[in-house]
């Protein structure tokens, strides 16, 4: 069944395929650890995709493009922060609004950019390292964002585990009342977390439109943001498991694409719906039985905080 698929190439493309969801899921992990459920990841990703694409095409620089993407995602997340932290709006509904609005606005912004090729994002020059058989291709042949996404997971892990800021962030997510009583600015911390999540989702979106596809079409993210949300649940709010989940998911995506190209006996439609079905399956496994992911969820997740005193 896997005949004709080169394992080195498969792993290499798996790492590339997982970058957008890895970035977005890492950002969302921090947001949820602060006790905020932002369902607008899809909207922020697609805003990042379009802003990044436009910036890269206009300036001719992929690096600026990624910055633009992060800014686009963070900009949209600011709206979410305003709604949920200042206006005390329902987080689920606000997240949905963010996605619906982001999808519309992105297709509006991207109108003149359909069919254009963005500037090429080059691989990090590792010199002779890239020529090592197998490992050269798997580890040393990628663009900077692949390494950045893994570094981001490590940074978030260290921050949440060992940094004072991380402890405060988790306290806000577990019990906002207690954190408030200790004198921490609950809403300010949450706004910062939301902005970080937005920037990461935007970066992930920009990666889709600048590297993964690379062009702009409406609805380019195709549910990647929702899958990122599912991966946070799958990871039961642990950074390294987010990496595992993203790679698992990237692997499925790449495998089904390869199987489509290789012309296996499985109909194309079944292959293209497989990532979504497997996400559901993974959610079921993680949420039930002893592995109950829900038990590890931050206690204040999705609840708004209004300082009564």
């Amino acid at each position: 069944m896997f005949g004709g698929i080169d394992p080195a190439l498969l792993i290499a493309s798996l790492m590339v395929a997982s970058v957008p969801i890895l970035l977005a899921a890492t950002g969302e992990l921090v947001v949820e650890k602060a006790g905020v459920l932002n369902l607008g990841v899809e909207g922020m990703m697609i805003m990042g995709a379009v802003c990044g694409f436009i910036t890269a095409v206009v300036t001719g620089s992929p690096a600026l493009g990624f910055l633009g993407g992060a800014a686009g995602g963070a900009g949209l997340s600011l709206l979410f922060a305003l709604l949920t932290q200042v206006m005390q709006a329902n987080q689920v509904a606000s997240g949905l609004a963010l996605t619906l609005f982001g999808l519309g606005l992105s297709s509006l912004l991207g109108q003149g950019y359909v069919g254009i090729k963005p500037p090429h994002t080059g691989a990090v020059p590792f010199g002779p390292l890239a020529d090592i058989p197998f490992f050269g291709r798997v580890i040393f042949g990628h663009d900077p964002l692949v390494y950045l996404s893994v570094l981001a997971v490590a940074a978030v892990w260290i921050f949440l585990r060992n940094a004072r800021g991380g402890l405060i962030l988790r306290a806000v997510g577990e019990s906002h009342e207690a954190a408030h009583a200790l004198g921490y600015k609950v809403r300010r911390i949450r706004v910062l977390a939301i902005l970080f999540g937005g920037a990461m989702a935007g970066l992930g979106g920009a990666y889709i439109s600048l590297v993964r596809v690379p062009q702009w079409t409406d609805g380019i993210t195709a549910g990647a943001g929702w899958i990122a949300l599912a991966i946070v649940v799958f990871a039961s709010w642990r950074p390294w498991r987010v990496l595992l989940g993203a790679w698992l998911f990237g692997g499925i995506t790449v495998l089904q694409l390869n199987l489509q190209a290789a012309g296996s006996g499985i109909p194309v439609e079944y292959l293209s719906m497989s990532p979504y079905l497997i996400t559901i399956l993974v959610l079921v496994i993680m949420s039930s039985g002893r592995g109950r992911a829900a038990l590890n969820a931050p206690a204040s997740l999705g609840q708004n905080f209004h300082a009564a005193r």
Partner: protein
Amino acid sequence: MLKLEKRPSPSVFWGRATPVLAVALTMMAGSLMFAALGKNPFEAIRTIFWDPLFGEFAWYLRGQLLVKAGPLILIAVGLSLGFRAGIWNIGAEGQYIMGAICGAAVGLAAYPTESWLIFPVMVLAGAFGGWVWAMIPAILKTRFNTNEILVSLMLVYVAETVLAMASTGFLRNPDGAGFPGSRNFSSYPAAANPELIAGTGLHWGGVAALGAVVAAYVLLQRHILGFQIKLAGQAPRAARFAGVSPKRLVVMCLGIAGALAGLAGMFEVTGPAGQISIDFNSNYGFTAIIVAFLGRLNPVGILFAGLLMALTYIGGEMASTNLGLPSAAIQAFQGMLLFFLLACDLLTNFRIVPARKEVR
């Protein structure tokens, strides 16, 4: 400085007033957006909100209003029940598609038999298709504690793939020279869903939508299930003490929403859309979320909200042909409406009072 003070109970006045305020604010923000796109904002707003009702082509466009509002209201009424109880079914789009496919499949299987029984059976099949698709997240939620938001949404993508399979494969018109898309129902009277009163745009979907509004109103005001839904949403702990079974609520709310969305899809595909095609669905399942909130999750409110949202669809199409306003602009406009609604809700639940200087 100002500060927020939580109201002991939500304000009735602001509950009614916020949708109006939100629409007004959206029009203002929308005007800015249209101006930024280089269009005359006043002309754009007039084309979207006034011309379809009172303009030159109003005789035709007024009929379109019910065509678009029907499915939106039908889906939104179902969604609102769940939203009230804190059950977030956001995969109505998928249930809508599956209802359409099931309903159409039954009708096409009977082709070319002529019997008055065919259409009612198709209606049942449509509701069944949507119900089954909604039961997947419901059962996974009750059995395995899986998040219904994510599952129902993932199933939208699966349903879209099934739709592609249906229109290019198992429901493709055998006489269609290989083009994707099923037989057209307009040429098969036994299974068609025509306009009931010429010129009004009212088809069976519109009738069903009105029925759903009335039924949901009675359910919420007079039936124990409606009471339980409201209780579970406002005070989940109290609901549990009162013996409300959360699992039963999940199954009921998702089931009703799925069946109604399936019905909407079935009526759409046999009526206005005419056939199963890859893109017959017009994102009604997602727009209905906005409709549900704009109607403040209240059946009667949803009736008006659905009509207003239908107006933006029709007006948006007019604006795109007459003024060259991109159709994505109207989608962003609808999204903005939900933002303003949620923001204005602040006034319902909080009082804005001047902050006194406190000793810290």
